[in-house]
């Protein structure tokens, strides 16, 4: 069975406490429910959740959507935005988890990455270094989401040309973002040329602005 690995990187820095993280948790639950109604996703999607604040953690290791049991993400009382550490962990996990084709094994689909932050990297140097490593790897799509007024687009556009922004950190914004994520996931499993880099995304809902 060819898996479609989906990595979700979430900012759990101090400023995400309270309503923002609650909205994220609700949004992820809604995303899971939407994906479960997509038969293709139900058979192939595997999800991993990575959180980053003062350190990066594998909140839930790569798990088949069918076996996925979501536990709410909590935000430590204070913490920075070590996004570079988050990307380093992503690289480590992708190298460990994602299967490549061999004569005896069918490779996975190229992994999709969704990164959400409400700030900018506290470890800017590590972040830039990690981006270099990310570019060497065959991600199907990397989508970065700048949530709220403090999120800096310029850092995210270094990582990917698919940056979206949310004006607010409330549940309306996050649930529309995660719904859109689930629609994008469904597109991640179509055949593409070896040389192709990015998949096309479905048009985002009104709460989400594409950053060009």
């Amino acid at each position, binding site marked *: *069975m*060819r898996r479609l690995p989906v990595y979700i990187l979430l900012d759990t*820095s*101090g*400023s995400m*406490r*309270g*309503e*923002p993280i*609650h*909205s994220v*948790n*609700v949004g992820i*639950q809604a995303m899971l429910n939407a994906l*479960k*109604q*997509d*038969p*293709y996703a*139900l*058979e192939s999607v595997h999800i991993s959740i990575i959180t980053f604040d003062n350190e990066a953690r594998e909140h839930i290791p790569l798990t088949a*959507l*069918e*076996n996925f*049991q*979501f*536990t*709410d993400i*909590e935000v430590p*009382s*204070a*913490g*920075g*935005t070590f996004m570079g550490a988050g990307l380093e962990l992503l690289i480590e996990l992708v190298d460990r988890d*994602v299967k*490549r*084709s*061999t*004569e*005896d094994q*069918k*490779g*996975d*689909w*190229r992994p999709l990455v969704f990164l959400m932050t*409400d*700030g900018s990297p*506290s470890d800017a140097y590590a972040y830039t270094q990690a981006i270099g490593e990310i570019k060497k790897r*065959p991600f199907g799509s990397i989508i970065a989401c700048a949530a709220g007024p403090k999120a800096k687009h310029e850092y995210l556009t270094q990582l990917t040309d698919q940056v979206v922004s949310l004006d607010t950190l*409330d*549940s*309306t914004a996050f*649930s529309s973002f995660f719904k859109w994520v689930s629609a994008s996931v*469904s597109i991640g*499993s*179509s*055949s*593409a*040329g*070896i040389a192709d880099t990015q998949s096309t995304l479905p048009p985002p809902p009104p709460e989400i602005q594409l950053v060009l």
Partner: protein
Amino acid sequence: MTNNTRALLTAGLSNVTPRLSELELSHLEKQAEIQHILSRFSQELNEKVQQLNAPPPLSPESIDQAEPVSKTTSVDEIMPAATESDITADNNPPTTFAQNDNEAPLEIALVAEDIIICINSEANTAAEMSEPPPTEVAVPISPLRPGQVPVQSAVPATAPKEASMPKVNFAFANARVGTAYLSRIDASSHYGEPVTVQEIKFSHDIGISFNPETQELYGTPSIDGDYQLFIKWTIDGKSSHTSEALMIVNPDPRSLWKIIEPPADDKYFKSNTDHQMIDQDGVKIAAASRRGRSHEHVGSFRDDDFFISHDSETDWSIMIVADGAGSAQNSRRGSQLASQTAGSYLSKQMQGELGQKLKSLIQDWQPESQKQIGPLFSDLYRNAAKLAVNAIESEAIDMAQTTKSYSTTLLATVSIRINDELFAAAFWMGDGAIAAYGPVGKVRLLGMPDSGEYAGQTRFLDNDAINDSSFNNRIMIGKWTEITHLILMTDGVSDPYFETDNGLISSDKWDLLVNEILPCLQSDQAAEKLTEWLNFFSPGNHDDRTIAVSW
């Protein structure tokens, strides 16, 4: 003030079981009456809180604190935090429990004139919270005036009855509708004592029961969704405790496939299925193509295409299958153009001088003649590929589209039966498979699929491929006896049947495939039967499927 209707609603309804679905909540959220109740509630509470509110001590800001703690805290900002605690306690996956004293659900209680909001924090009673933890919005407790009695929280954060309840986690597998379920409950206590589950009650009858003898959940669930389980358990056999857990029942993916018709007025309209049969002079060729479930589900078109022809004058047969890239917008037209263009060129060439020349060389089949055959087919296929690419490029210019948006694979054979032998020259560009099969247990793969390190990666027909020095590696020729079937297929068929490159050369897998299609081929309507057969179900493989067989 942010709009927290949903948060308030979730908080207010947190004790309702079963939990309301996202859909029900959003439906409620839109009702004017509900909105009115909620806004009145938050307004009244706000007024109340503001009266009580002394300026809060400013907390040290964390590294990227989004906003300083405001002087007056509106309840609108408090509620979500409260809600969050509430949800944490209530919406637990099958591992933690609301019963746990460390996670006592938050309640808002009106005590005389005072409102105490305890934000759920480990073993912290509201009275102990002398100042809010950093970055957390909390209602500061007014300093005590002389003679004032400290206010007790209406809900002590530690419920004495449950204070001794050990921390226990319960883990069990997710279920699927219509599939027999059996999962042992893995109960682990914080200190490693053995936990015995005595009884489990369900919020709904979902078709699953608990067997205390085996400590297993079993049954066949009939309905999907997330359901609350109430688990009664014991460690010492004397005192029992009850915990809640969540049972996740997934839908059966097979029940979710929709069939949506593609737009009838599309500029590149293509029928969902197509088939063709040729039966002349003992030569039988059938081709069938069917839209994949992944395209049916979203109402997009079949991207595959085929071309077959046979000339009874010269005995040459042509078979082509093409698979338009799923990621390319106009690929359904690309596969059609490529197969038709290459097909008609190949047919025409084989009817003329070249066909005659090749036929006599093949009949001779001596080393001298064999040497000449290769280069002739190399030129023939190169020209066919060029014409196909040119046709696509012209179309792209004409329609103001990119050439890439017409990306397609192209697999072709030019074949002839002479006496009891089959000669075939195959051209292979992309994924899928071409094979000469027979007798039983023997298969000759006529080339290698183009595949990348990851699923769905392949190469498409373009000028780079034609000008590549290894172009000739895409061509394979041979003459064999006892070949019963010459078969071409797109990856929609080869992926489920062969899966890997090693699978493609496994004669067992080919035996299986041929056995499956034999009944179709023996019918008077072989092509129609093949089209029906292409509807087979294989988890994870829902691409368009096209097969062409000559026998």
